[in-house]
Every structure is written in C-alpha cells, then in structure tokens.
C-alpha cells in the first residue's frame, strides 16, 4: 500500500494559486497602502516618506474634492433611480411569470448591463449630442430650448447618471426577481384570503422580505458607481474637436495623477480613500444585516 501523506494533494494544488494571489492581489494592495505614505514620481530614485502629507494635501486639492463630490453625487443618484425603478419592474415582470413574454422583458432590461461599456456609452453620446442628438430634437418638440448636454457642467453630470442608471437597472431587476421568487406563495395566498389586493400584498409582504436584498443591491450599485471610469472617459472625449465637459470622477483623477502627473504616492493615497469608502459601505451593509437578523 502506497502512503502518500494526506496533505500532499491539497498543498500542491493550492500553492500555485496562493502564489498568484500573493503576487497579483495581496502584494499590490499592501503596496498601495505603503505608497500612499510616500512621495514618489515614478522616475526618481528618491522616495521620501511623508507620513500622511498626501492625505492632508488631498483634503484641500480642488480637483480631488471635485472628483469625490461628483462621484458621490453620481453614486447616490444612480441608487436613488435604480432601486425604485428596478423594484417596480421586477414586480411587474414577476407578475407575468411563466409567460414567454417575461423572458423577453427580462432580457431587454438586462441587456444594457452586459453589452460592452464603450459602444453603449457611444450610443448615449449620440442621443445627448447637442446638434444632432434626438434628445434635443425631442425636447424642442415640446418647446424647450436645446441644451448642450455634454458641455454644461451640471447637465453632463446628469448624462452620466442617466447612462449609469441605464446600465445598473438590469442587474438590480435580476437580483430582485430572484428575491421575489423566494417569497413563499403561501404568504400571498394568506394575504389574498384576507382580502389584500396584489398591490397591498406586494407592499406589505414582498417589500419587507426583500429589504435585505434591496440593501445588498444598493451597496453593490454604490460601490460599482464609485468605480466608474469608462463612462466618463467616453462621454467627455472630444468628437470632431469639440471636447465635452469632463466629469471628474475618482478613478479618473487617480489615473491622471499617476500617469499624467507622475505622482504615484499621491494617486495611491486617492486609491486608499476609495478603499475606505468601499470598506465603510460594505461594513455598513454587514451591520445593518446583523441588526436585522437580530431584531
């Protein structure tokens, strides 16, 4: 009888993967934290330790403050639009469950979430276009003067919110549908026997049961909106020599500091701020979950 030690297979199988994780996840994460405390311009040999100076500078850097302000507005607006709209859509789709149509609805709502980002953003860019875009033509039909959607600082923010919500809704609908299918039929049955309308049943049975799922989707949507970059890049890049107003978002500011201004330590400090935001959001979600399950 051969006696290969029991631990041999798991150790050998796991080691290369752990090595990968160490090199491409753990090390860069730690390196981000470390670099945020240094001043470094990529080229120079000198990399002086500056403590929290990068963070202190960030606190009064107008570009960074603009970025964090924009990103926060976008993230919370996208959630404020996505969650109620997606909940309503999921409820409607769920009520048509079992019909062939419901699959078509589901797929059409979900498609924007999966198609490539850049072409989708380009489609919206045409819609928003000041001279040729159908949006201006549409509002002109109602007597509203044409707006320069992508050039105005406030409107370009609105455009970005619309684009990101359009992409986020499909994901939220999908998760809500899973949640709605998990609501036991017996509860609806009981509510109906008590004379509740389907709207009431949804409001007082499905919505409370879906609350954890809504919380989860909100946090995921917030986090992914804090990481947007491609959308801002595409909407702002110039077409025929006319650059749109650049909506400065966090990742964009970070990449600019790192690759255009060569301030790697400073950019790492921004990355740490992003990380802290994400950790706070995740932590809040866990906390709320635990409170709920205790109550």
């Amino acid at each position: 009888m051969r006696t290969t030690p029991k631990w041999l297979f798991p150790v050998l199988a796991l080691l290369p993967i752990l090595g990968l994780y160490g090199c491409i996840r753990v090390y860069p994460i730690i390196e981000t934290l470390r670099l945020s405390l240094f001043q470094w311009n990529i080229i120079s040999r000198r990399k002086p330790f500056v403590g929290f100076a990068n963070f202190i500078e960030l606190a009064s850097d107008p570009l960074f403050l603009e970025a964090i302000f924009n990103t926060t507005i976008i993230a919370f607006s996208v959630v404020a639009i996505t969650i109620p709209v997606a909940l309503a859509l999921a409820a409607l789709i769920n009520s048509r469950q079992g019909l062939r149509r419901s699959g078509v609805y589901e797929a059409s709502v979900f498609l924007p979430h999966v198609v490539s980002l850049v072409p989708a953003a380009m489609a919206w860019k045409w819609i928003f276009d000041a001279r040729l875009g159908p949006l201006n033509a549409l509002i002109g039909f109602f007597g509203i003067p044409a707006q320069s959607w992508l050039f105005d600082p406030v409107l370009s923010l609105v455009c970005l919110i619309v684009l990101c919500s359009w992409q986020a809704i499909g994901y939220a609908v999908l998760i809500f549908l899973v949640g709605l299918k998990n609501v036991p039929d017996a509860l609806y049955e009981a509510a109906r026997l008590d004379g509740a309308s389907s709207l009431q049943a949804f409001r007082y049975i499905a919505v409370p049961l879906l609350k954890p799922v809504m919380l989860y989707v909100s946090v995921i949507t917030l986090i992914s909106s804090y990481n947007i970059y491609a959308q801002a890049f595409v909407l702002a890049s110039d077409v025929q020599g006319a650059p749109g107003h650049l909506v400065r978002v966090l990742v964009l500011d970070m990449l600019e500091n790192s690759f255009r201004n060569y301030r790697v330590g400073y950019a790492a400090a921004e990355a740490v701020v992003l990380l802290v935001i994400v950790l706070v959001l995740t932590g809040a979600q866990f906390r709320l979950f635990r409170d709920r399950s205790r109550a």
Partner: protein
Amino acid sequence: MSEHEHPSVVGQNRAVALVIDAVLCAVSLMMLLPLVFLISNAFKTPPELLAWPPTVIPHQPTLDNIVSVLSETPLFRWIGNSLIFATLSTASIVSTSAIAGYVLGKFDLPGIPVIFGVIIATAVVPFEVYMIPLYLNVQSAGLLNTWPGLLVGYLVMSFGIFLIRQYVMTSIPDELLEAARVDGAGEGWIFLRIVLPLMRGPLGALAVLAFFQAWTAFAWPLVVMTNKDTYTLEVGLALFQTGFTVDTGRLSAAAALALVPSALFFSLMRRNFVRGVAASGLKE
C-alpha cells in the same frame, strides 16, 4: 391565476394584465432603443443621420460607414485581441476557482480558514485600488504591451473561488470522495474524474461571468496595452472615437460592430449568465 374568481374580477385582472404588458413593453423598448439606434445609425447616409424624427430602419441603407471603419481601423484585430484576452482570462479563472474551491471546501488543514478569509477579503477591494502598483510591477518586468502583462490583472476571481467552494460544500457528498479513496483512487484522479464533472453547472456560470468581465475591461487594458495593434476592442473603440475627423456614421458603425459579439454571446449564454449573476447576488 385561480379559476374560481368571480367573472368581473377576471375581467378586471385581464385589464390590469394588459396595462402591465403595455408598461413592460414600453420599458423594454426604451431600454433597447439606444442600442437599436446605434445599429441603425451605422447603416445611414450622412443626410439621413440628420433627419428628425430619427429613422429606426434606414431608408437607403449603406455599407459605406462599415467599409470605411474597417479600412481605417484594425477593428477585427481588436475583436481578436479581446477574444484571446477574454478566453485566456476565463480559462485561468475557471481552473483556479475549481481547484481552490474544491480544496478549500473539502480539505481540513490548519490554515485553510485563514487562506479563505484572505481571499474573501481581497474580493472587497476594487481592482482600481491596487491597479497602480500592479502596473508598476508589470512595467518593471518589461511586460507592457504583452499578453502576460494584460492577463496579470485577470487571472483569478475571488468570487469564483467562493462560488465553487459553496457548491462543493453543499452538493458534493464526502462519502463519494471517501468511497473513491477506499477503492484506491488518487487525489488527482478523484478531482479530475469525479469532482470536476459534478461542478460543470457552476463552472459554466462562472465562465460566462469571467468572460464578460474581461470582455468589458477598460482601465487596465487602457494603461497596459498602448500600441494600436495590441488594443482590446473597448480601448480601441474609445480611442477611435476621440479622433478628430470621425463622424457619427462611422462612429456608430464601429460601435455597432463592437456590440455584435457581446450581444450575440449574451443571447447564447443568457441562462448561464443569469445564473452566475444571480449567484453573485446571493452571497451574504
């Protein structure tokens, strides 16, 4: 739904159902409209692009836009690059997740909970946070503009390991593995011949998820692949549309061509995709 309803209630339900269908149809159309216009614009002549209301089906469909885009840009090359990148990334994520998920789910060694904890902890950190140090490593290894350099960011997926581990723990009985061991099967054989076939469902869902993740990657390929010939589709397209002399027709043609593979892939893999995304929503 029940057959014992009062006739008037049934009539009312039918009216409600009709309204719901109307609303859902309208919303579905609105969601798809930007993409429909994009594809239709690709086939329009310059005068028709200016027409109001915009036509959905071009009156004089033309291939000029597509032909000129294909002659101006290496679009097929970019599509090829994206395909290779997404395929390799998927292969790596599926195999590492299968192995690590199995080992972490079925072997009881000291340290395994810690390892699992670290893997889950890295899942919380967005890629954008540690992208810069990773880039510097790739740069100092001389791997900019190479496949390995591009892939480095997309070799593992913490969620994949989590998903497979959950599946292994709940759906693969220990007795099955023990029986094989008693029969003298080696661990490698057990993994390849017994465990792997059982994991096909969740691995399929994971593969679709991984493929889309790589296919739509933007910031990482943008900084790592900087030659026109090494761009991925998303990057090539984003930089093409910044060009000075591109008009809507050609932009739409390029975007529409880029849209086709992902839309096609989605419609083929919808079940798997939905299953993967739904699973990602159930982790708590």
